[in-house]
């Protein structure tokens, strides 16, 4: 959701409460569908975007930075929803929210297998999901609410988000390659002909140790929010609505953002203690978004125009060995300083990196667009810590999420280079992987996730 006015001039009145929730009927759209009247748009270019490229830096497993200053104009600029952490992010729009949206603090990401073979049933579910998602993102309970219904029946909504604010919840929906043709080559839903070429099985990269139970999926939903309970509530309720039609294949919690799409905000640090995402694509940088993130009319397919491709990788970090690595080596591995986050040889975080000053195997050097023919991706990853493993080691790392216009020019070539040469590989291992096509935004109350694909 990017070409909406900022939430500044949209007072958010629908905080969650048991009584408010029931006063809203299913027929009411959760938020006003966007208008195309340009006069009503107000874009808020960030200070960084106006200043152009002055910064530098890259982060784990990704490319960023490079290129000319972002050209902004009132007609095509993408407004960044700079909202306070309790507010609601508009659900309807040309693009799905949760991509260019300022990165929220928490994540619950779920991949689903479609268990029904019935196309109509799947479509009915997607409509129901869309309706529930529209409600939840605006801070409402699903269906008939969490309380006040029939005493004999379990409530429609599970209730743990009652009284919590919308918390900038975004729900972003995607479809995996196996939806078009399953592992046995079966075209279950008559979609095989609509699968875009870029929605492929990711190639095996050197060093991958992928767990099939943490990889793939026919569908995905990315839930991001500033309150972890709001994100978990959303996935839990969607999974419940989907029972009998879909089943969760795997899911991942992220407790802290590692990338931001708001370059003037403080850059978050990853679990290795390094700043991550200094030169990420800004949510306000519509030129870069159009060039690197949104699928355009030329590339297509038509049902995906305005959408994107999402790569999800569960990257386990060998935390204990990393922690006993010298500061010098840590900084050499990344190609940045640990404190300031400045590129090696430069004083400030956002200084343009001098790649030749870094080791040839430095992460930033290898991932930089200049080393990858200008390839850029929008990173939206989260740190995770799923307790400890059987050996008492922290089961932690980066749940890498990246959006791009075409993985064949984005993640794949960059990761091929990183997997072969990156000094960081000694301290990380990719253990889960998935690729999804993310359809464009839901336009209004009658629209639904994936409509253009199925009709």
């Amino acid at each position, binding site marked *: 959701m990017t070409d909406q006015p900022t939430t500044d001039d949209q007072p958010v009145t629908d905080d969650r409460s048991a009584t408010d929730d029931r006063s809203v009927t299913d027929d009411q759209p959760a938020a006003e569908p966007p208008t195309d009247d340009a006069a009503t748009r107000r874009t808020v270019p960030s200070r960084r975007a106006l200043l152009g490229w002055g910064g530098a830096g890259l982060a784990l497993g990704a490319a960023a930075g490079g290129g000319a200053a972002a050209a902004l104009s009132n007609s095509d600029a993408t407004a960044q929803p700079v909202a306070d952490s309790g507010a609601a992010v508009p659900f309807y729009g040309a693009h799905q929210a949760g991509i260019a949206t300022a990165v929220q603090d928490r994540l619950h990401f779920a991949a689903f*297998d479609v*268990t029904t073979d019935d196309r109509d049933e799947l479509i009915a579910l997607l409509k129901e999901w869309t309706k529930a998602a529209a409600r939840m993102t605006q801070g409402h309970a699903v269906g008939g609410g969490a309380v006040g219904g*029939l005493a*004999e*029946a*379990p409530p429609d909504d599970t209730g743990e988000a009652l009284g919590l604010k919308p918390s900038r919840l975004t729900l972003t929906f995607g479809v995996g390659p196996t939806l078009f043709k399953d592992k046995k080559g079966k075209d279950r839903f008559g979609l095989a002909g609509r699968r875009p070429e870029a929605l492929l099985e990711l190639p095996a990269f050197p060093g991958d140790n992928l767990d099939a*139970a943490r990889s793939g999926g026919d569908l995905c939903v990315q839930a991001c929010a500033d309150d972890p309970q709001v994100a978990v509530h959303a996935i839990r309720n969607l999974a*419940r609505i989907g*029972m*009998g*039609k879909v*089943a969760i294949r795997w899911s991942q919690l992220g407790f802290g953002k590692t990338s931001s799409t708001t370059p003037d905000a403080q850059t978050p640090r990853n679990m290795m203690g390094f700043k991550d995402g200094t030169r990420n694509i800004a949510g306000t940088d519509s030129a870069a978004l159009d060039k690197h993130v949104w699928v355009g009319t030329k590339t297509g397919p038509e049902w995906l125009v305005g959408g994107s491709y999402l790569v999800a990788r569960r990257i386990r970090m060998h935390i204990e060995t990393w922690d006993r690595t010298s500061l010098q080596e840590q900084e050499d591995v990344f190609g940045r300083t640990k404190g300031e986050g400045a590129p090696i040889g430069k004083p400030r975080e956002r200084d343009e990196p001098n790649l030749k000053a870094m080791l040839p195997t430095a992460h930033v050097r290898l991932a930089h667009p200049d080393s990858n023919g200008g390839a850029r991706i929008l990173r939206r990853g989260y740190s995770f810590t799923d307790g400890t493993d059987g050996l008492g080691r922290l089961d932690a790392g980066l749940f890498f999420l990246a959006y791009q216009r075409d993985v064949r020019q984005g993640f794949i070539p960059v990761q091929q280079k990183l997997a072969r040469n990156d000094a960081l590989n000694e301290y990380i291992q990719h253990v889960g992987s998935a690729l999804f096509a993310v359809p464009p935004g839901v336009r209004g109350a009658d629209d639904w996730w994936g409509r253009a694909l199925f009709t």
Partner: protein
Amino acid sequence: MRAARSSAVTAIAAVASLAAVSGCAEKSDAKGSDAIRITASNDKCEVSKTKFPAGHVKLAVENKGSKVTEVYVYAPGDRIVTERENIGSGLKVSITAEIKAGTYEIACKPGMKGHGIRQKVTVTGGKVAKRNPKLDKAVADYRAYAQAQADETLPKAQAFADAVKKGDLEAAKKAYAPSRVGWERTEPVAESFGDIDPKVDIREDGLEKGQKWTGWHRLEKSLWKDKKITAEDKTLADQLIKDLKDWQKRVGTADITPTGMANGAKELLDEVQTGKVTGEEERYSHTDLVDFEGNVDGAQKSYQLLKPVASQNNPALTKELDKQFAAVKKLLDKYREGDGFVSYDTVGEAKRKELSDAVNALAEPLSKLAAAVAK
């Protein structure tokens, strides 16, 4: 087996708030003017008053027939309010019971079997809840099902106990899972008698401090893990039969309601989801899939009996339930082997997830059945 929690069905034995607490019978003349006279014969069951006030009601029974008879007072759904067995030819007995306002049936059972010769009576005073005869029939039919399951279980349990007592390890192992099927099918009823479940179906991890471990799972451990039958086990086999007979006798008194049946069906699926799919229930014998099927069968029975009402109130729900019950059964069929199922330790993680997904797909709509019945 499951941890103690509130059950959908509550036992009449436990509390005084239920319709009848005392059913004392004695030989007497019992011709007081307040008494309801019941004249039983081989083909008749005459009741002197078919309408009488609630409270302590005295029934003066006379068996004028040649066969030994029984007299029951049934609340709707065939819940036994009070009963008297073994009334010999020519005998007079008196039964006193506290009966609340409502409609009941008095039954005489010459020869002490069958449905009995029945007479409808109305107990007046206070509010009488409006009843749905379709639902009363569903409850009565379910009670008959639960009773039949208990009746069929006893000989199978006896075969199991006999094998244990003979020290025949292999025969006992073979008889173990079949002896549990009737119990698993009607577990919510069995569990409503709070004291029986902890004696017959508790797992080692469910024991409280100082509680002695008895019942099926103790014997399961001896047979599969310890691989030997002790003298103690033989005593436990006898105890199991004794406890199961107690269950068999009490099914008729269980307070079963339509919503209780619906929730009981959902609880059976909960049992599958938390105990069987995980392989915890039968951790030594790995006969979890036998229990699994028993739970699903029992849930399906409840559902089928409630379906005439539920399908009127929520046809989309019953359509979905028909589909999901069929899907679970079809999936279970993949694991059949001989008379039973493959050992659950041969079912891998991915297959267990598939089973779990199918159970979720059924249990989620099943959780809406009670509302469709209560509507």
